[in-house]
């Protein structure tokens, strides 16, 4: 079923293909960034939030990437466990720090949006709380990776952790939402990205995805070469 994938899963083939794609992807990322910034700063102020919608343009994509990158990590971990392929190992490992940064950015920008809108830097509402837990899941995964010396073993063990986390995330989301309704009666105002704000947001979202793909590919390529370097040094 995945034959087509494995033709590119050969590290040498992967290096060739990704090397050819990356300049185009970087250019596309730069172009979307410029467009998104232009559209965002040209957007009219919202009648409720004023110009703080500008924060939402970068907050919401970061929050979406926080979960999307974890999904990428889980898929790579599955391949790592089932097919025991080195490319999958490296892909899962390099995705984690990127996901952690996106999650951190979602938390910081969310807090900077919340201060003028809610009057406090932090609110224990469902979405903020699950994002915080998600951040800790990334940290645990990264810590475990760095603690295990043998790379292949670390890949398999961390893959198990990523999968356990994936099973648990929906439960955490459910429990956090349940807990949030338990503790606050009034509903708080949440960001709204409709009408004239939809297009700038979507372009910025596209930029975040392109940036992630570029960074992910670059990191995978770096780790593959580092591995080759180590084997060369070992042989010499």
């Amino acid at each position, binding site marked *: 079923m995945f034959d087509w994938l494995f033709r590119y899963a050969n590290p040498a083939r992967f290096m060739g293909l990704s090397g050819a794609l990356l300049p185009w992807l970087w250019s596309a990322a730069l172009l979307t960034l410029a467009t998104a910034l232009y559209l965002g700063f040209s957007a009219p102020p919202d009648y409720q939030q004023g110009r703080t919608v500008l924060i939402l343009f970068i907050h919401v994509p970061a929050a979406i990437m926080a979960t999307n990158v974890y999904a990428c990590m889980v898929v790579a971990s599955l391949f790592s466990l089932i097919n025991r392929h080195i490319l999958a190992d490296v892909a899962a490992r390099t995705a984690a720090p990127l996901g952690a940064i996106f999650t951190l950015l979602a938390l910081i920008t969310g807090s900077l949006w919340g201060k003028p809108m809610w009057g406090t830097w932090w609110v224990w509402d469902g979405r903020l709380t699950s994002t915080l*837990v998600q951040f*800790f*899941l990334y*940290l*645990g*995964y990264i*810590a*475990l990776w760095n*603690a*295990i010396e*043998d790379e*292949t*073993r670390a890949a*398999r*063990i961390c893959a*198990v*952790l990523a999968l*356990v*986390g994936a099973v*648990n995330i929906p*439960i*955490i989301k*459910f*429990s*956090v939402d*349940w*807990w949030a309704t*338990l503790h606050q009666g009034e509903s708080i105002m949440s960001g709204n990205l409709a009408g004239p704000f939809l297009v700038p947001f979507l372009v910025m979202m596209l930029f975040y995805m392109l940036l992630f793909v570029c960074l992910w590919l670059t990191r995978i390529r770096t780790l593959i070469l580092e591995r080759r370097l180590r084997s060369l040094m070992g042989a010499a």
Partner: protein
Amino acid sequence: MTPFLALLTRDLRLSVREGGGAVLALGFFALVATLVPLGVGPDLNLLAKMGGGILWVGAALAALLSLDRLFQADYEDGSLDLIALSPLSLEGAAFAKIAAHWLSTGLPLTLLSPILSVFFGLSGSAVIALTMSLAIGTPAVSAVGAIGASLTLSLRRGGLILPLIVLPLLVPAVMFGAGMVLEAQTGLTNGAVGFLAAFSLAASLLSPFVAAQGVRLNLAG
């Protein structure tokens, strides 16, 4: 005696005999329950509001304290290899070890909680809810913790990483557990019992398989 029971009783005896896990966890739990009022102040109304959550967090941390040795001790002295070779499957062995850990820490912590809840001025119904919630929920702590213990068993500093990877996974247990106490205090039904029981049951049934896989990955290298 079946291999399952043999492993269970061996682990139980070890946890009591070494003066190790079981007693230390209880002492830790009691200290948390003492330090929080000392830090927060003696206002019993405030403490009663926080009591359920704090005792739950304290119990979960206390149970984690001895978890990093669950597989590690047997890994270091080689008995884990023997357990892997025994007629008992690794899944069965993991289940026996989780059960032994719960009996030696989760259960004593549950039994100690009504006494410690005196420090927090919990009402009678809240104390019953807290004890019930710990009885239902601590198996999940042992079970999810066992996954972390199996993944970190070959690490020298596993004890530091274990809480970092296990505590985020235990968020639902703490919320539902403290939710049961809240239900008793406010009288508003919130369904926490059902959610906690479901989480605990699912964790206890699934984690032996995951933990066995973790042990296998560590023994293979």
